[in-house]
């Protein structure tokens, strides 16, 4: 009788461990998916900024087709237009800086925020 009780206790503990491990694995998986979604947002914003002379795109929010629970929010800020870029003539070339903030999300509230700084050289406009 005692042996059966001990075995049952062990079984319940094992089940709890398995459940916890599964929960942790799922949480990790969802965070990885949120991270990937954030990277997709970064890549999308970077591609838009890579067009020569493109202005900072407006905020965007979209779901990923692979998982309806996954999606991304992106905002792009122009943080600086340096009129005195190192190594280049002032008033001829400027260095324009952007900050891309991409928040990827997935199920169960998984959320990863990535921030990337980008810059490019442009021709300066005269006042």
């Amino acid at each position, binding site marked *: 009788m005692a042996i059966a009780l001990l075995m049952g206790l062990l079984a319940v503990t094992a089940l709890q461990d398995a459940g916890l491990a599964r929960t942790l694995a799922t949480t990790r998986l969802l*965070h990885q998916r949120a991270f990937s979604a954030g990277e997709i947002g970064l890549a999308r914003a*970077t591609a838009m*900024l*890579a*067009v*020569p*002379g493109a202005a900072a795109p407006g905020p965007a929010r979209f779901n990923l087709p692979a998982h309806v629970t996954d999606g991304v929010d992106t905002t792009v800020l122009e943080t*600086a237009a*340096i*009129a*005195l*870029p*190192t*190594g*280049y*003539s*002032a*008033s*001829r*070339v400027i260095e324009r*800086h952007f900050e891309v*903030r991409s*928040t990827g999300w997935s199920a169960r509230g998984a*959320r*990863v*925020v*990535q*921030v*990337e*700084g*980008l*810059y*490019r*050289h*442009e*021709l300066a406009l*005269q*006042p």
Partner: protein
Amino acid sequence: MIPVRAVLVLLHICAIALAGKTWAADAQCSTQFRLPILLRLPGSAATSTLTTALLIGDLTPGLRIVDATNGRLLWTASASGTPTQRFADMQAGFSTSLAALDTDGDGAHDRIYAGDLLGRLWRFDMDNHGAPSSWLAGAIFADLSQATPGRGFIAAPDLTLIAPAGTKPWLSIALGTANTSTAMAAQPIHVLNRFYVLKDRAPLERWTQRQYDSWRPLVESDLMLAEGTRPATVQDNAGFYINLGAQQVAAASLTVDGNTYYTTVATNASLLHSCVGPPTPILLAPVNVGSVSADGALNAVTLDTSAPYIAPADSAVTLVRDESDPSGTFVCQVAGHTLPGCSVESTLHRSFWRREDAD
């Protein structure tokens, strides 16, 4: 027989088609040059509003600032008369050798470099918050005049921040001299021209007039001669110069990735003659291109022709979008000719990346 005047007119029209502008309409040959600058004027309801003004230099000694919208005279400086501000050494005109900077990033220009017709480079710090009588503090930064008159600055200073790893940054000021004699001499005056690259060791520092008054202007003996492919400067040097002989510098240089590209024009004629005499057609002359690195090593520039370009004398190195490159590269050109190895990429670069989520 074709009249000479008709040939000159035809040459003028060709020059317009070639360069898109006329010598007479351009800075060197007009009686004044206007550099647009942005000021934050006091007294307005919104002091955050920037006013577009014009910094004007011409053949008469001194500088002026006028409101760009209504032409109202805002400020004058000279050595004599009744200027808004008096600078005792300002006995020469400034022509087109003007450049302005916004060193603190607030949108308004606060630093001016100006080369005068006597071969002296001026440095000014500008603060428009007070009365116009104290807008500028400044003095001669470098006195590069020569014993015989006739050599001065026409080309605008090319200003570049240079920041080598591990050393304090400096502002590189690149500009060359030209024959600026205004006398209509029967024989051209032969001047020995030079291309200077000076170092302003206080690129972002605002100096008071007291600091300017105690500044000893740089002279040629403070500089090193650049004449080969080896570096001509040491870190604490004041800069360097290149001997150009009779070649004149009539246009601002361009610095790309630390290398300065400049044009020289092979003519002994004063580039200011047509400003004091009757208007003359655009001056077409052999234009050459030189290049020098920030440490004074001369770079070889391979032109796409064995001879110099016959082009307007004020042909500058310009940046033009390379339409064949979808990434938006800008290539350097002189009079429509592309300079190999001189380009500015507009591709995106990553400056940082971080995660901000706490969970």
